[in-house]
C-alpha cells in the first residue's frame, strides 16, 4: 500500500511554483524524482497520485461550499460568518469593536448567531483557502469595508474579477503574497470606486509592479497603493533606463 501522503506532498498535478515561469526549473529533490520515475512506469502509482491530487481539489472545494443550511436557518449574515470561521479566518461585525476568530486549535464559539442582523464589516482571510466559489457566501455582505487576503494561495484573477460585488463598500484590500494574482485580474479592480488602500507587495506574477501601480492610480485616483515602488520592475540596460512593457498581458 503506497503512502498517499508522500505522493500528495511531493508531486501534485500542475502545482509547480508560479514564480518560476520564466526561470528554468530547479531539479526536484530525490523523493520527487523517484516518485516521478515510478509514476511514469507504473499505471497504479500514476492512478494513486492523480487520486491524491483530486482529493486535494475536493477538500478545497468542500471548504468553499455554499452554506445553504445556515443560510436558511439563520440568515445570510450568520452563514457568511460561519463560513469565514470555518476557513480559520476572522471577521468584525458592523457596530462591534472586537474581532471574532477561531483559537489556535480551530475552535470557535457560536455567539455570533445572536447577532444575525449585523452585517460583517471587516474580514481577515489571510492564509486561508478562500476562492472564487467561496464568494457565494459573501455576496450578501454589502457593507464589507476591509478585506485582507494576505498570502491566500487560491486567490487568483477570477476571484478579483468577482470582487465587483463589493463595488459600493470596499475601502481596503490587501493582496500581498497572493501568488496567483496577475495584471489580468488587477485590471478588474477599477470597479471598486470606494477603494482607498490597496496593498500589492510581493506579487510574483506581476512583471512590472511599478508600471502597474501607475496605471492603477490613473484608474483609481483616490486609492493609495502600498507595497510597490515606482521603479520596481524597471530594467536598466547600460546608460538608458526604459520601462519595458510586456505584451500579451
Amino acid at each position, binding site marked *: 500500500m503506497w503512502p498517499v501522503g508522500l505522493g500528495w506532498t511531493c*508531486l501534485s*498535478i*500542475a*502545482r*509547480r511554483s*508560479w514564480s518560476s*515561469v520564466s526561470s528554468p526549473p530547479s531539479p526536484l529533490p530525490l523523493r520527487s524524482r523517484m516518485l*516521478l520515475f515510478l*509514476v*511514469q*512506469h*507504473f*499505471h*497504479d502509482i*500514476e492512478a494513486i*497520485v*492523480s487520486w491524491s491530487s483530486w482529493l486535494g*481539489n475536493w477538500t478545497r472545494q468542500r471548504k468553499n461550499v455554499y452554506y445553504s443550511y445556515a443560510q436558511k436557518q439563520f440568515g445570510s449574515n450568520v452563514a457568511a460568518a460561519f463560513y469565514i470561521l470555518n476557513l480559520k479566518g476572522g471577521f468584525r461585525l458592523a457596530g462591534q469593536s472586537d474581532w471574532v476568530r477561531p483559537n489556535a486549535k480551530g475552535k470557535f464559539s457560536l455567539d455570533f448567531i445572536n447577532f444575525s442582523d449585523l452585517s460583517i464589516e471587516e474580514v481577515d482571510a489571510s492564509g486561508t483557502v478562500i476562492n*472564487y466559489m467561496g464568494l457565494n457566501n459573501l455576496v450578501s455582505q454589502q457593507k464589507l469595508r476591509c478585506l485582507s487576503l494576505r498570502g491566500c494561495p487560491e486567490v487568483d*484573477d*477570477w476571484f*478579483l*474579477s*468577482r470582487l*465587483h460585488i463589493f463595488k459600493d463598500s470596499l475601502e481596503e484590500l490587501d493582496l500581498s503574497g497572493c501568488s496567483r494574482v*496577475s*495584471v*489580468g*485580474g*488587477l*485590471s*478588474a479592480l*477599477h*470597479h471598486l470606486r470606494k477603494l482607498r488602500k490597496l496593498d500589492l507587495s510581493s506579487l510574483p506574477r506581476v512583471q*512590472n509592479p511599478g*508600471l*502597474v501601480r501607475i*496605471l*492603477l492610480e*490613473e*484608474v483609481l485616483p483616490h486609492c493609495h497603493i502600498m507595497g510597490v515602488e515606482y521603479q520596481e520592475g524597471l530594467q536598466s540596460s547600460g546608460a538608458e533606463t526604459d520601462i519595458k*512593457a*510586456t*505584451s*500579451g*498581458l
Partner: protein
Amino acid sequence: MWKTWTGLAGAVQRVRASLHPIPYRLASTFLCAPHSARCFSTGRAACKDFIQELEQQLKAFRHKALTAMPGSDWSPQNTTAGLPPERADIVIVGGGVVGWSIAYWLKRKERVRDGVRVLVVEKDPTYSQASTVLSVGGIRQQFSLPENIHLSLASADFMRNINEHLGVLNEDPVDLQFTHSGYLFLASEKGAAVMEENYRTQRDAGAKVLLLSPTQLKEKFPWINTEGVKLASYGLENEGWFDPWSLLNAFRRKALSMGVYQCVGEVTGFRYSSHSMSTTDGDMVAFKRIKYVNVRMPNSLEVQPVECAIVVNAAGAQSGKVAQLAGIGSGPEDSLASVPVPVEPRKRYVYVLNCPDGPGLDTPFLIDYSGVYCRREGLGGNYIAGLSPEENEEPDSGDLEVNYGFFQENLWPLLARRLPAFECCKVTSAWAGYYDYNTFDQNGILGLHPLVNNMYIATGFSGHGLQQSPAVGRALAELILDGGFRTLDLSALGFERIFYKEPVLERNIV
C-alpha cells in the same frame, strides 16, 4: 506492471557497459603478442592503429546492437515516418482548438482505458493560416441566442478551472493570460430596443451584464465620445481576452498525454458506401457511411487510408471543402443531397495600434454599433482594432495579405470618432485571419449530418469558435459517446435548420 519497454534500457546499459572499450594499455599488451616479429621496434604505431580500428568496429557493433534492442525505432521495413494508424475509431479532421477540444473530451469521457482510438489530422503543424492562433482571443456572454450564452458561460467556467482539467503531471501549469476586462457594446437609437431585449435574455441565462445610459457611460469611461449612443451594455464577469495559443497547446498537451494520436497530413478524400432508399413520393435518397479517410502525407503523393467508424469535421474555414469530399452538396437539384455545408473562409484584418494617450487599465473590449472594435493589448499603450466589412465589400480570401488602405479609409474615421484619443495613433503592425463564416445564419453547426451517417460537424462559428471551444468539445463528445446532449441542449444548432431553411440568427456578431 511494466508500462514501457524502457525498463529494458537498464539492461541495455549493462550490455553497453560490458561492451565498453577495454583500457588501452591492457589491450595493447594483450593484442600485440601475435605480431612479435614487427611489434617491438616500430610496434607502437601499428598497435595504436589496430586498437583504434578495433574500437571503431566495436563501436559500430554496439550501435547495431542498440538499434536491434526493443525501444529503438529501427525496423526492417522501410516505412514513411509519421503515417497515421491504419485503423482508428474516431478521426477528427482539423487540429485547431475545436478539434483538440473534441479529442480531449472524447478521451475524458471514455469509460475504459483506451476505449476509443482518436486520431487528429492537421495539415499545417505551423498553424500559419489557422483561425485559432490568428484570433483576437476575446470571450463574451453578450449574445442574443441563449445557446451561445450558455456555451460561453460553460467555456468561461472551464477556463477558470483549467488546471484541474488540463493539468499534466510535472509540467508547467496552464497560463491563459486572461485579462478580465469585460465587453462594452454601444447601441444607437435603432439598436437600443434590441439591446434591452438581449440584456434580458443574457440575465436570464446567467450572464452578469449591466446596462449603462450615456451619462453613466461618460462618467465611467470619460475617454469615450458618447455622441449617437443611446444605450451601452457592459459585461461584469467572465468576459475578457486570453491567449489562444496557450489554450490550443494546453488541449493538445493533455490530449496527447491521454493517448490521442496525431497525424500531420491533409484529408484528400473519403471512401464511403452508400445505399439508397425511396421516400413516399418516390424520390431516391442516398445515405452514405464513410469507411476510409484518405490522408495525404505532407510534400508527398503517398496517401494512407485510415479505416474509421466516425469522422468529425472540425476543419474551420476549410470545412465546406472537406464536406464536399464526402459528397455533401453534390446531388440532384432541389434534393436534400444538394445542400452543402454553408461554411466558407472570410478574411478579416486586425491592426495593432500604438496610442500613447489612449485609455488605461480599465479599457474594456469596446464594440461600436458601426461594427468597429478595439481592445487594449499589454501595458505599453498598444491596442488591437478591427472592423467587419460590409457583405458586398468582402476582401478576397485567397491569401492572408493585409490591406492597410482598409484601415485608413474605413476603420480609422469610425475609431477616431468614437475614441478621440485615437486621432493620433500609429499602426505598428497588422495581420489577417479567416473566419469560418457560416453564410446561412452566422452560428455554429453542431451535430450529425442527416445524410452521411457517421460525419459529425462542428464548425461555422463565424468568429466565436475559440471562446466556445471547450463547451463545444464537451457537447460533441456527449453526442458521440452518450448519443445525445447531456449538459447543454444544443439541438437548435443542428444541421437540420439548414435543410429546412430556418435560420437561427445571432444579432450580436462582431
